């Protein structure tokens, strides 16, 4: 996790600004008056449940979908007005958008020609994302993980200042996810602005500096990921949680009973808790930093009644008509 602002010395990232962005498909508001900013040189996680409007937002940012209202700009300009867009913004949307009969190398060569990138760069990137051996095979034979890597190579083709990745971890095996994390971290040290969407917080938690959380097309929360964490807490298990809790409380710590034999203590100092238990002669079965809060928070935020997933028919909130009400 890199919580500190990391504008590297060679910071060249651009600023993404989403302002009042709205998209309606018929009666359905896929994106609803969404505004947020992605700061240059930072990795921003764009989070929300499936169907929250992440992909629609990214597609509007990339000029593929026309907004019903609002604007999405990169350094003040819409994507479509950038002179050589792939050298400013690299993006990987779905892993499926390759011609199955075209080889990975040829897919990149097609894009290289369109964005005036020398062909030598194609082989460089195939090497970089680790699919050089499969470059001559037709993309239809690629595994999901290889497609993601090819998509990433396409995004990086123009050595862009901004990277926009839509669910890049989808379909990756654990080894691939680990590789992706390291890769994104490496790219962020080059000072690129990175916006990476995901429906799973823990997928990007260790990689991102900032988060933007949306649900049902609306902004739920945004800010540095450290502000999401809140205060650090320790989980402790012992035989007599009441006694330990009382002693810690006298020490001025906030203590919450979380189970028959467990407490959660708002403190960053595990030693202090251990020392207190030792003083009381209580055994400790477990003492660790409580890390589930972020996931919980994400879940709470996105499942609050007003943010409940509109795509799940059973939980569709009845807006006007109450049960039993006769129209």
């Amino acid at each position: 996790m890199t919580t500190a602002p990391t504008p590297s010395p060679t910071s060249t990232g651009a600023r993404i600004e989403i302002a009042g962005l709205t998209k309606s498909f018929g009666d359905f508001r896929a994106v609803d008056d969404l505004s947020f900013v992605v700061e240059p040189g930072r990795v921003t996680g764009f989070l929300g449940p499936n169907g929250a409007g992440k992909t629609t937002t990214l597609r509007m940012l990339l000029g593929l979908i026309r907004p019903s209202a609002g604007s999405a700009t990169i350094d003040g300009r819409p994507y479509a007005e950038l002179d050589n867009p792939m050298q400013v913004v690299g993006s990987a949307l779905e892993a499926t958008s390759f011609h199955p009969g075209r080889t990975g190398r040829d897919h990149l060569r097609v894009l290289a020609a369109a964005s005036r990138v020398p062909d030598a760069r194609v082989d460089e990137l195939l090497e970089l994302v680790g699919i050089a051996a499969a470059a001559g095979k037709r993309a239809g034979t690629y595994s999901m993980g290889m497609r993601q890597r090819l998509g990433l190579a396409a995004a990086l083709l123009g050595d862009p200042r901004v990277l926009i990745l839509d669910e890049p971890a989808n379909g990756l095996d654990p080894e691939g996810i680990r590789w992706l994390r390291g890769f994104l971290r490496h790219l962020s040290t080059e000072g690129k602005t990175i916006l990476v969407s995901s429906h799973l917080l823990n997928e990007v938690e260790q990689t991102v500096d900032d988060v933007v959380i949306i649900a049902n097309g609306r902004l739920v929360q945004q800010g540095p990921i450290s502000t999401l964490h809140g205060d650090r807490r320790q989980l402790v298990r012992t035989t007599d949680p009441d006694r330990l809790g009382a002693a810690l409380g006298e020490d001025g710590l906030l203590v919450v009973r979380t189970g028959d034999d467990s407490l959660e203590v708002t403190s960053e100092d595990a030693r202090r808790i251990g020392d207190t238990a030792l003083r009381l002669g209580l055994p400790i079965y477990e003492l660790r930093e409580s890390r589930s809060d972020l996931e919980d928070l994400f879940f709470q935020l996105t499942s609050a009644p007003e943010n409940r997933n509109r795509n799940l028919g059973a939980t569709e909130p009845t807006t006007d008509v109450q049960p039993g009400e006769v129209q």
Partner: protein
Amino acid sequence: MGAAIRSELRKIFTTRLWWGMAIPIVLLAAGVTALLAATSEPEKANPDLGVPAMSQTQFAINTYTGAVGLGYLLTMCVGIVAIGSEYRHQTITSTFLAVPHRTRVMAAKVVALLVTGAFYGLLFVVAAVAAGAAVLSSRGLSTFGEGFAVPRALLLMLLVLGLWALIGLGAGILIPNQVAALMIMVGIAWILEPILGGVLASQDWGEGVSKFFPSRATQAMLSQQSTGINDSVPVERLSWPAGALVLLAYSALLAGIGTWLTTRRDVS
């Protein structure tokens, strides 16, 4: 614009489709032309109607251009697939990401298709002439006739094949669903339009309209010298440049409306 065109040409020649399309074009051109050359006879003079016998030059032309009706359907399909496969495999997303100016993308596709249309057209012409000439010469008939009549007819056939490729591209831009575009256009060009054109032509009032139909405009381009045939029923025809302009107008209309819609369409 140059970059976009280069990209389009790479797209065409990096899948197997380009030679997958070349095979049926060559086989069809050679096969049908050879069959025509082997089975048909130059028309005899008909003194009652004052029709002279068909010249060998004219017979050679009729033979070589005999398969063009199937040929232009194929080049039309080449045009449809040039854009249709992008929608089918969703590569249109990366195409528009690389070149967000959608009108520029479509213009680049037109230029690239001029190259491939000429390529397939040439393939068709060469295959038709090679097969047809072989059979004609084995029958002791003239293969290249007199003067420039045969080369001229072959060049016009090449133009017809290229123009139909453009019509296909226009239709493909207008109808993003590749399968639908192929079925609709083959249905129209092969069945509906010739029948409708024929029916209209037989009416006094329809005559002036039907000559602007694509198949009739195509005929007009290919049958200028055919003073010897079918003159028993004089049909009003366009001149060949007019015929070419009519075909060009169809492709421009389809591509124009299609491009206008494309610039407004969401790509998702």
